[in-house]
């Protein structure tokens, strides 16, 4: 907690003294030689160090992809673990260059917080988890229940809205971190726990007996999770945005980590433009023309990254759902590279 307070105090002081580098983020990163990435740190599947201490997750791989595009080295990333409460302050003050921390895109964050969301790397929704023993079938039966929730999230607001709209009463118990909230739920301080559905799947694994709990089907809210950057640097905004599109385009054309070298020989114009043998699309972004090749070679396309971290290749086993490509009935859609 002392650390959080120090960070907030530091942020206040920093914004008073340091002149934040708003433009030229790319140059700053190149000079520094490493990308500072604001990540979750405790959410397995999205951002957390594994047993060997290596950072893994969907969001973490997104930062690696940016590093690969800039440095041709996916490992030139410094991951800064942030709580949901102090993540925006860290981005605003320049402590991190990009925030990729399962953060919901909302209008106020896009405006008054001085941030810009570059897109959606995971379409999610908010859900409730309860004990099976309670025999609750729907969130509508949760009138007067006590719900554990993490502070500084859209979850906290959606929860209040959901109950208010249905004229139901609730008792919220708010904690500064997801770990504390899930621990309190596990020790039966609350009847229910709520956060994004993907988050619940991940947090569930921390419970003493995950089998005794059930995720309710009710969709509480839309939660488009995406990377965010500071306002005022369009070049950097474009880079982060197009890193995601490059990974989607690669999946769309079947370019994978394994076959990317073969695909270099392809005659398909779309592929030639993606992999940099035609046009100067990378240089236009301030990168090299083989920027997308580097991303795919070192990190993989969006589908690979998804399956590896949260999909069938992971303990979470989340279905693609809305996160499938547009051509496969999902919402992930990249504008053309040309």
């Amino acid at each position: 907690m002392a650390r959080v307070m120090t960070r907030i105090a530091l942020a206040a002081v920093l914004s008073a003294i340091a002149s934040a580098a708003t433009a030229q983020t790319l140059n700053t990163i190149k000079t520094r030689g490493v990308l500072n990435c604001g990540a979750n740190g405790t959410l397995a599947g999205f951002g957390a160090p594994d047993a060997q201490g290596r950072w893994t997750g969907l969001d973490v791989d997104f930062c690696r992809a940016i590093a690969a595009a800039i440095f041709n080295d996916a490992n030139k990333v410094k991951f800064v673990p942030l709580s949901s409460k102090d993540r925006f302050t860290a981005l605003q003050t320049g402590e991190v260059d990009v925030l990729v921390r399962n953060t919901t895109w909302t209008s106020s964050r896009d405006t008054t917080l001085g941030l810009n969301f570059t897109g959606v790397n995971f379409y999610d929704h908010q859900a409730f988890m309860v004990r099976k023993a309670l025999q609750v079938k729907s969130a509508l039966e949760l009138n007067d229940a006590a719900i554990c929730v993490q502070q500084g999230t859209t979850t906290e607001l959606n929860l209040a809205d959901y109950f208010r709209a249905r004229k139901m009463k609730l008792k919220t118990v708010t904690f500064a971190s997801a770990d504390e909230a899930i621990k309190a739920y596990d020790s039966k301080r609350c009847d229910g726990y709520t956060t994004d559905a993907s988050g619940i799947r991940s947090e569930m694994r921390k419970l003493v007996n995950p089998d005794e709990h059930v995720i309710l089907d009710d969709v509480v809210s839309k939660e488009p999770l995406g990377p965010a950057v500071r306002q005022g640097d369009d070049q950097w905004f474009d880079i982060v945005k197009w890193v995601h599109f490059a990974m989607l385009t690669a999946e769309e054309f079947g370019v994978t980590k394994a076959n990317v070298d073969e695909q270099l020989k392809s005659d398909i114009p779309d592929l030639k433009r993606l992999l940099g043998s035609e046009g100067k699309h990378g240089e236009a972004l301030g990168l090299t023309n083989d920027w997308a090749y580097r991303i795919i070679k070192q990190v993989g396309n969006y589908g690979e990254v998804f399956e590896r971290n949260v999909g069938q290749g992971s303990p979470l086993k989340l279905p693609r759902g809305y996160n499938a490509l547009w051509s496969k009935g999902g919402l992930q859609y990249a504008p053309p590279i040309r």
Partner: protein
Amino acid sequence: MDAADSTKPKVSPLYDPKVRGIAYQVALCALIGVLVYGAISNAIENLTRAKIASGFGFWTTTAGFDINQTLIEYSNISTYGRAFWVGLLNTLLVAALGIVFATILGFAIGIARLSRNWLLARMAGVYVEVIRNIPLLLQLLFWYNAVLKALPEQLQESFIIPGGGFLNRRGLFLPQPVFGNGSGIAFVALILGIVAAIIFRIRIKRRHEQTGVRAPVFAIVLALVVVPPLVALALAGFPIDFIYPYPGRFNIQGGIEILPEFMALLFGLVIYTAAFIAEVVRAGLFAVSRGQTEAAYSLGLPTGPTLRLVVIPQAMRVIIPPLTSQYLNLTKNSSLAVAIGYPDLVQIFTGTVLNQTGQAVEVVTLTMAVYLTISLVTSLLMNLYDRRVALVER
């Protein structure tokens, strides 16, 4: 040229220590002023450049989140400003109760440590050494988890408190009194009783000083305060109802709810601060010369009155200043509530509100100003009390 100048050797203003002193102070003030101005204007410029909203416009915006302990009316359609007051009152509540209980416990342990009873003195010593040397945050987490784990988890297994209360992992639930028609008379009777008791006490004191005759002050004061409201209530036919808590689908419903987070925080703060207060009290008692006790004994005063009438009043002069800083510590430490989910000012305001509005500078500045104000007011009150008990030189 006046007379003063003629007696002193003439010095150039450049070497005049007085002029120099003033010049240094003016320069220092100017420097601080420039730094402060620079920091503020830089902050404003940076915020504008980063396109972050600034100012206190958010104060009247709908907050949209819930708070589970509110001393004033609050719902999720209230404003951020209202949430601020809710948080502030929650902080003041835990600080005020904490100060009262920590003082009582601290005095008891401080005196116990000087007791002639070996066991009692040692136990007090162990208490102080153990509690003082473990970080408060760890103690809070311990109490929170200990409180939670020790209490029954199922509603049906709740401890039932005589008189219609429940205690379980969700908190302490007590019957809530509802005052009906006619209880206003009892309230008036209570106030009249208190006024009468104060007048009586002043009179008795004056008589004691003039004639030396003592009266059973305590019993009469108690009677004056308690009896009139009871009589008034009896005349009105006891118009007080209680809302009794009852087990609902998920939780205990109705009545007064005391959160386990609140209990854990209060418990942790009281136990921790009491250890320091005990040491302050011990030091204060040591500071009173042994001769004072011996003189009291030789006049035939028993141990209790010796402590109460001779030693403690003199010890208070030494105790008050460090006691004040313990009170300030307790108030400031209450911000550790954030670790165990008690909705205090820091949790609500620099937590949720800061995050939702993103206005770190305004929110943090205001929070710091609040703690500064609370601390200065506490110091002021304690200084006023200190002045009253201070040794009057004759």
